[in-house]
């Protein structure tokens, strides 16, 4: 006679209840294994019910099969869960002091000046500028004459120069690289030059006899002052964020005409006026302008056909703005407590 499917179902309900109460009580892995064998073993309770498949009606067979499979999965899942929780419990036995400090990795730090130089290079590189270099020991020709700074001209006083023997000098700006680049290549020119410069300034919080500049030069047909403004605005926004404004003021440099000083809106107060910007809302950056035709004369570019712009900027100034550093001497002291911050 076929066993009543309903009776089997009710028995299975009881079995499930027994499994739950027994598994809840489990204290260790051995007890858990015993439960597993009791319910899911080859001769376990679930297997016993699978044997009853033959004694139910044909119509109830699939239903019973389904129910038993579900039950089997349910038991297995519960046993797995208990096993993981028992393992975790055993690992947590014993005192582990996680408040002890971690082992510091051995890492080096970068000088922020170099970080900023790399960032500037990266920005201009993304705008199509390649990087040129030049010597620190320069001649009067490259440092002054070819930049339209004649001897016996008051504009030489703008830069106090260190002289070496045999008419050599330490470059006072990166501008000689402009001349060296234009001498070796024809337009279009699109370069930046970064590096060390020297001026006879007594060191203090804002002066250093050695400092770094970034110089830029673009020469091509149809280059105008408006392009200079666009380029430096794009640069400023990549470096300091999309809200930076750039202001150009007329100025004088022997190697540019028209010449400009350019300022960034104060990054501290966003141009509203604060102590850093001396209430003006602007931070002076450096000089720029359209390449003076006299300079083109020295490198044999036809000033009627080609025009160009150039600019300079002090890396220390940018780095000081960027990190809020208040004394230029920090860059050259290399105090580990300073370097460690970068």
């Amino acid at each position, binding site marked *: 006679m076929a066993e009543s499917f309903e009776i089997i179902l009710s028995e299975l309900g009881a079995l499930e209840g027994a499994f739950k109460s027994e598994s809840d009580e489990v204290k260790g892995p051995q007890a858990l294994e015993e439960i597993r064998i009791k319910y899911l073993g080859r001769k376990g309770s679930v297997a016993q019910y699978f044997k009853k498949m033959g004694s139910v009606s044909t119509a109830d067979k699939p239903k019973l099969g389904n129910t038993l499979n579900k039950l089997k999965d349910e038991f297995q899942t519960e046993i797995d869960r208990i096993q993981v929780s028992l393992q975790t419990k055993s690992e947590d036995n014993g005192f582990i002091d996680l408040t*002890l*400090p971690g*082992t510091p990795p*051995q890492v*080096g*730090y*970068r*000088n922020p000046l*170099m970080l900023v130089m790399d960032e500037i290079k990266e920005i201009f*590189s*993304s*705008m*199509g500028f*390649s*990087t040129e270099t030049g010597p*620190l*020991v320069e001649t009067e020709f490259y440092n002054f004459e070819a930049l339209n700074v004649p001897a*016996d*001209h*008051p504009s030489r*006083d*703008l830069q106090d120069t*260190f*002289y*070496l023997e*045999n008419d050599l000098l*330490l470059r006072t700006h990166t501008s000689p690289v402009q001349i060296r680049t234009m001498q070796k290549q024809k337009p279009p020119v*699109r370069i930046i030059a970064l590096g060390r410069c*020297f001026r006879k300034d*007594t060191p203090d919080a804002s002066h250093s*006899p*050695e400092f770094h500049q970034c110089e830029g030069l*673009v020469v091509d047909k149809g280059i*105008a*002052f*408006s*392009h200079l*403004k*666009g*380029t430096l605005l*794009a640069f400023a926004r990549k470096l300091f964020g999309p809200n930076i404004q*750039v*202001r*150009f*003021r*007329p*100025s*004088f440099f022997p190697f540019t*005409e*028209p*010449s*400009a000083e350019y300022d960034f809106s104060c990054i501290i107060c966003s141009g509203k006026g604060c102590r850093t910007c001396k209430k003006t809302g602007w931070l002076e950056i450096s000089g720029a302008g359209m390449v003076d*035709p006299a300079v083109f004369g020295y490198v044999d570019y036809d000033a009627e056909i080609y*025009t160009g712009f150039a600019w300079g900027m002090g890396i220390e100034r940018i780095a000081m703005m960027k990190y809020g550093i208040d004394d230029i001497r920090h860059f*050259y002291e*290399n*105090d*580990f*407590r300073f*370097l460690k911050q970068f």
Partner: protein
Amino acid sequence: MKVTYNWLKSYTDFDLTPEELADSLTMLGLEVESLQPVSWDFDGIIIGKVTQKFVHENEERLSVCEVDIGSKTLNIVCGAPNVEVGQKVPVAIEGTRLPNGTVIKHTKIRGVDSQGMICSEAELGISSRSDGIMVLDDKVEFGQKLRDALEDGDSVIDIDVTPNRPDCFGIIGIARDISALSRSTLKKPALDFSENGRSISDLIKINILNPEKCPRYAARFVGDVEVKPSPWWLVQKLEAIGIRSINNIVDVTNYVMMETGQPLHAFDYALIRGQEINVKTAAKGEKFTTLDDVTHTLNSECLMICDREDAVAIGGVMGGLNSEVSDSTKNILLEAAYFDPVNIRRTSKLIGCSTEASRRFERGVDPNGTLFALDRAAQLIAEVSGGKIATGCIDVYPTPIRPKMVELRSERVKHLLGVAVPSAEIKSILGRLGFKVSGEEIFQVEVPTFRPDVTREVDLIEEVARLFGYDNIPADTTALIEQAVSKSTHEQCTTKITSTLISFGFSETVTYNLISRKEAEVFSSNRPTAQVINPLSEDLSNLRPSLIPGLLKTVQWNVNRQNSNLKLFEIGSVFRKTGKNIEERTSIAGILTGYSVENAWNIKARNSDIYDLKGYVQELLARMGILNWYFDTHTSDFTNKQSISVKKNNDLLGFLGEVKTVVLEQFGIEQPLFAFNFDLEKLATGQLQRAFSPVPKFPPIKRDVAIVVDERMPAQSLLDEIKEKGGEFLKNTKVFDIFQGESIGAEKKSLAFNLTFYSLERTLTEEEVESQMKQILEALEAKFSAKLRS
């Protein structure tokens, strides 16, 4: 260059507050460095009116005055000869501290009560005049504070005038720019004076012997002057812009110079011998004493103003002590000239003397502004000194300098600025700045001689841009292009070294190229070092021959601040003299000192040593893709015997070693220090782009072996031999232990090696490896008498 707001406003009637004016000037290219209210430090000074004056009962040179200061009347003893009843005078009341530090007390002077002091200009710190009390304008009200009476809300504006704008070294020049901007009229002061009929040509003869150095020399004669303190209006104007008041004559020449930018000089006519002026160059080595009582030695380039006998001034720089205007001067010879800018600059540099006059002449004054300034000064001198102006002026100007004509294309303005400025606007701007413009689209522009900086079309375009406003030129980014820019080998190499060393735990330093001679010499390998001729100090007098001294200074700095465990590097230029030239190369150097591993709760500290550095260097060379390099012996002036060189094909790439204690002591370092140094270009020869080599798929077989050899046997010899005899499957050999002790015998050491064998094609058999091991050990025994450690 300082100006006051009111002074500027007297030449052009702009409608701007001082702050707006300062902004406008800055945006015109006349950068304002500061804007400050004119303020006088007159604490405790009250304006009093002298109501009575008696002769002091005990001292007839003193007066006893009753002075009404509004709130009360004070009794004051006064020694000044010029005090009179009815005068309005500055009174320092009891308790006042004067600029010279004197504190005014209620006192008795020769038996008579004195309740304050009537002050001179010197006592108030206004000027150096101390020969009488300061007499104020009769219109001022007495009883009020002196400060309130003098301050009229004026502001001092300090402008950084660029070297190309000599015209703005005169206030009228600045006013011209402002008038052009604000479209207000420029009002130059009117000339209005009378001449006394005595012809100047009877009084003085002028010859220019070097017209190329002095293209123009003009003079006027003012007779019967009374040299005395300047009137208050003049004192106040000069003092406000930082010029000390001297006397009425000198003050006028300074005033007119500040106004027009044309320096002037007043000679005491009585001291001009022979009634003649000869403008000529000095004799080489000639000595001359200027009115500041400094004696200069001149050369034959220097232009002198001479009388019949001798020099009376260095042309364009400073007058002589021998012809200076003094209190007894009665007649004035007034000079206004135009000197060659380059020659003035040379002279000024030669004698180390830069004056208000030389600064103007060397930038270029207006050669056609001479007579206006001369007449203006003559008029003012006559006004403030009671002098009489002789009829006519001498004006030696053999080759007049004419205004230049420059062509300006309207199209070129747009081409260079990137914005179309209408032709009418171009014309208007240039006109307002004093240029004469004719033509349409292509303009013929006459450049006034007060603008020597404008000589080319591009200079005119700058003038247009200045007045058009840089702010009104658009920002155009179309000159920027997105394109891949390839980096130079040098750049790639620098980046690679930096990132490698940072990953090793080295920190990047930036030190000066300039170091002291003493520091340079230690590292120069006995070669002459490159020296600065005009150093800031001995500490910064030589170009570094090596990066190591800078790193040692950095170590000293940090050790002094209790950071003594350091790993530092720098990439930078180093220099050496090669004949007349200076060779410049890029170096990379690093140092290691203190603990390589610091003490921590779970780590035992360990001192850094040469092997740490060797490991870093080996890995650096590998990362730089340098192949076939080798270590070799090394000696240098600054490293001890723990030092080795790195070579390739017999070429020195660099070295590493321990720095000598004597060298460290020189830098105040008392702990062992290891340094390495490489030439960057030589590291840049490696293959940065690496080729892949397959990762083994089959398991390796490892063998440990300890052998005993003579204690002086170099490990490298054993390693080389193991490699040689290890066969194709020996891929790696490590030294993992060194032991010395009685158990292995005296003067012996045991070296333990760990050998790894594998094949890329198959799993090796134990037998294969055993047979290879046997060959290795036999070879080691045969060659080095190495015994297996039992």
